[in-house]
Structures are given as C-alpha cells and as structure tokens.
C-alpha cells in the first residue's frame, strides 16, 4: 500500500451523481421527464394559456390521434373542445405547485416533529404523538370545510388542508425509526464527540430515515394531485377555469365510458410523474447509500 501525504481528490459530487444517473436508464428517463414537467410548469401558462382556454363546442370530445387539427389536438379535446395537450401543459403549473407545496409542507413538518418526538423525552414525545393521533382521526374534508369557512378559499389554504392530513404518516414513520436509530452505536459515538442534538438528528439520524420518507412522499404526490380536485368541489383552492390535472380527471370522469381520453391523459400525467418521482427516489436511495452505491457505479463502468 503506497503511502501518500495528500488525500486523493474525490471525483466531484455532482459528477459522480451524474455518472450514477447515467448508469440507471430508468432513473435517467425519470429525471428527464420530471425536468420536462418542471420546464412546462414554468413556461406552460405563458405559452399555451390562450390555446388551452379557447373553447370550440363543435370540436368537443374530439378523439385523440387526429393529426389534421394540429399537434395540440393530438390527445383529443375536452367537453368544451379545448385541446387536452395544451390543457395538460398549462395545468402542470398549478398541479405541481399544489402537490409539491402540500407534500413538502407535510413531509417537512411531519418529519421534523417526528425527529423531535423520537429524540426528545417521553413527555414531549407523548404530546406530539397524541396530537398526531388527533390529526389522523380528523377527517380531511372537515378540515377543508373548517379552513374554508374560517380562512376563506385560497391556494395556500388548499395546500395547508392537503398537508395537514398527511403529517401523521411522516411523523410516525420518522419517530419509529429514530427510536431505533438513536440506540445505534454511531449515534452514541457522535454524542461522545459533543455533537449537538441538531447535528445528531440531521447528520446522523435523518439520512437513515430519509429514503423511507422519500418513498412515502413520492406516492403522496399522486395522492395529493388527486385529492386536490376533490377539495375544489368545496370551492377551496383551484377553481375552473383554472386547471389542474386532478380537476381535469374529475371533469372527465363522467365520460369515462364514452370519451376515455378526457380523464386518461391527465391521469397518465399523474401516473408518469409519480412513477418518475418514485424511480428517482429509488435511485437516490441507492446512490446516497455508500453500501449500495456499487450497484450504480459498477453498471456505469460497464456501460460507460
């Protein structure tokens, strides 16, 4: 073994990640898809809003794959003859905003509380956990109605309503894992070094819990995207003519047997987004775990 005085320079973090992403073609495709969605969410409304709102009762429920109307109509048209593709693109912004907002909010609040409940003493933990029980047994619709009446309808309130009900799952998951992880020796070792509780929680415990939270969060994304449309019906949040994928699905619901494409395409968008997020989070679980990382690095080598 050669002894060198300087530490070897590791390949840059980003380059390494990029190489590992390249190694997993599924994850790569997922990442590209998500990138596309994000881009569309940013430019979509400015770019296609007019086309997406232009009604044309004569072209209502136009079937998909008819090229002669132009590419915007490739997915067909909705009940008011508006091109579905344009609507999906325009809806991406609201959808992503609400879904990401709600999921991030619930995940962050939930896991923060879970970390505290798991790490702190039994009394704090008991209080937090019973609070979670209360939230868990509070019907989301009731929360929605209450928020609607007390705070009034708005997108932020919609996000809050959607987020509140999902807090307990992150909270409970995090706490359960923290209870186990904090008994591990490397946590003791960190304590001996004088690491502050914050450091122990965020540097040592959180990384172990994070992959599980990410898995839940990705599936919650789908859940939130669908649930959001259910709340629109209370008049809270996104309202027609503003659109989200969830709303498009629920509007297309009655045409399920006669004009399937109305709710199919937005449904597909949700499925693909969820799928991509999940593939990416599964990839991340492996890429961020040094013990598993070889799965990607080896493959990357073979291919590249």
């Amino acid at each position, binding site marked *: 073994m050669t002894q060198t005085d300087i530490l070897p320079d590791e390949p840059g973090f980003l380059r390494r990640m990029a190489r590992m992403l390249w190694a997993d073609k599924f994850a790569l495709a997922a990442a590209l898809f998500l990138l596309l969605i994000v881009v569309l969410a940013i430019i979509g409304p400015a770019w296609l809003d007019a086309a997406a709102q232009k009604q044309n009762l004569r072209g209502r429920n136009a079937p998909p794959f008819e090229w002669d109307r132009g590419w915007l109509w490739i997915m067909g048209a909705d009940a008011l003859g508006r091109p579905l593709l344009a609507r999906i693109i325009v809806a991406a912004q609201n959808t992503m905003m609400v879904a990401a907002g709600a999921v991030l909010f619930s995940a962050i609040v939930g896991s923060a509380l879970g970390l505290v409940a798991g790490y702190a003493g039994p009394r704090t933990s008991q209080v937090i956990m019973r609070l979670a029980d209360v939230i868990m047994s509070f*019907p989301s*619709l*009731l929360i929605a109605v209450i928020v609607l*009446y007390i705070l009034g309808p708005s997108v932020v309130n919609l996000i809050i309503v959607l987020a509140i009900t999902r807090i307990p799952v992150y909270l409970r998951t995090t706490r359960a894992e923290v209870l186990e992880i904090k008994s591990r020796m490397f946590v003791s070792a960190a304590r001996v070094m004088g690491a502050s509780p914050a450091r122990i929680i965020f540097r040592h415990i959180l990384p172990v819990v994070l992959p599980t939270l990410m898995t839940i969060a990705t599936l919650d994304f789908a859940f939130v995207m669908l649930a959001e449309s259910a709340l629109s019906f209370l008049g809270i949040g996104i309202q027609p003519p503003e659109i989200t994928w969830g709303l498009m699905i629920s509007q297309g619901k009655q045409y*399920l047997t006669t004009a399937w494409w109305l709710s199919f395409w937005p449904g597909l968008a949700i499925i693909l987004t969820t799928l991509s997020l999940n593939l990416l989070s599964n990839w991340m679980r492996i890429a961020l775990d040094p013990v598993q990382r070889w799965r990607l690095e080896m493959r990357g080598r073979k291919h590249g």
Partner: protein
Amino acid sequence: MSSFIRKRVFASLISLLGLVVMVFFLSRLTGDPAALFLPVDATEQMREEFRQIHGLNDPLMTQFGRYIWDLLHLDFGESIRRARPAIDVVLEAFVWTLQLAVITMVLVTAAAIVVGSLAAFRVGGVFDRIASLTSLIGASAPDFWVAIVAIVVFALGLGWLPTSGTGTVWHWILPVGVLFIRPFGLIVQVVRGSMITALSSAYVKTARAKGVRSRPIIFVHALRNAMLPVITVIGDQAAALLNGAVVVETIFGFPGVGKLMIDAILQRDFNVVLAAIMVTALAIFVMNLLIDLAYLALDPRIRH
C-alpha cells in the same frame, strides 16, 4: 407494559376530549344546519323553529355543556337528518368500514410484504421492475377510474361479479380489490426500500454462514429488521380506511362510515360528525397503540 398501556389510554382519552372540543366548536363555525336541512325556499320562521327544536339558538357554551353532559351519559345526541340516535347511525356504518378495513389491510399487508421483499432480494431484476411498475401505476391511478373500469369489465362485460351493493361474498371482491391498490403500491415500495438495507447487513451474512435458506433469510432475518417503517405505513393506510373509503362507498354503494361522514359534514349534521369522529378516532387510537406495541415486540432495542 401495563403501566405503558395505562398511561397511553389516559393520554388518548385526553386527546379524544381535545378532539371533541375542537370538532364541536370548529364545526359550528362552518355554517347553519338549518340552511342545509331546509330547502332554499323555506321561510325564516321555519328556520327559526328548526333552530329552536335542535337547540341551535342557545349560546355555544350551553350547547357544549349539554353535549358533554349527554356524552357522559353515553348519549351522543340525535342525527338531525335521520331523526335517530347519531351513535346508532355511526355504528351501523362503522361495522362495515371496520370489516372492509380489516380484510383489505390483511390482504394488502401479506401481499405487499411478499412482493416487496422479493423485489428487494434482486434489486433491478425483472421481478423487481415488474412489481414496482405495476404497483406504482396502480397506486397513482385515480381510484374511481379503477372502480368504474372494474365494474365495466367484471360486472358489465364478463358478468362475473355484481356491480355493487352488499350481500354475498362476491359483493366484497370489487370494493376490496379497488381499496387494495393504493396501500399495496405504497407498502411494496416501503418494504422494498427497507429490505434493501436490511439484506445487506452483517447479520444476514451470519445467517448465510449458518446455511439458512434464502426464504427464511428474507422473511425472518431481514424482514423483522425492516418492519419498523413498514408497520407505520400500514397503520397510516389502515387509518385512512378506518376514516372511510369514500370513493368505494360511493361507487359500490357500500354503507360505510366514509360517505356517512362526508354527508354529515356537508349537511352540518354535527352530532353524526362528532359521533363518527369519536368512533373512528377510538379505532385509530387503538390501532396506533397496537402499532406501538408492535414496535416494542419487533425491536427489543426500543424497549427501555
């Protein structure tokens, strides 16, 4: 152990009381039941009488005091809509919900654990890819899609199963099938993720060195270590089912507590809302207690 349970029951009772107080006051901020019970054209005098009959004209504190007093006598009040004791209405529905939740969760848990574990055993293998993909697509597809398509295919098309309703075993298949999908997808993913880590740990090597077969290595050695986040998520999904499976109840005409609760909330039938929340909350509290006991049973390191 018994002191743990005693403390827990006590804390849960406090949260139940908190829940009742919260729901009682917050729900009363959400509008006048008279406006909803009576048709739009009803006269103001009729509304006034209605409020008088149902004690809605008294000061809120008086109403609350009366409610709590009755509650102490195990009287949950009358349903405004149904003119019968709210608790009867709720319990009737809850029996169905409980059955549905238990059956679904038992099936989901068994299936998801097997599939998730096998997927984790060969990460990136064919089984892993197929299982992940199908479960994720199922989990992110709108549930009413799945429900309607299932009816169209299995009841209308093939004529194998009844469209909806209750009565025979056959009536359960579609609702359970539809409810199965989302928790299944979620739990498969959580099991898979958690198992990947567990299967690469040193004690699995020990088991292999002992000559233990693959199946017990997966399902005995690794699984128990991987179970903490899994049972948490199972609990979360079960809680969701205990709160009522609205879509399934609506579409399949299943007389559960979900639609009852939604209707009661929308109609501001407060006594039913409160009774329903208390019953489901109790179920959820019990379930969370069982889950916490399961943590202790699963992982001796948590017992301290």
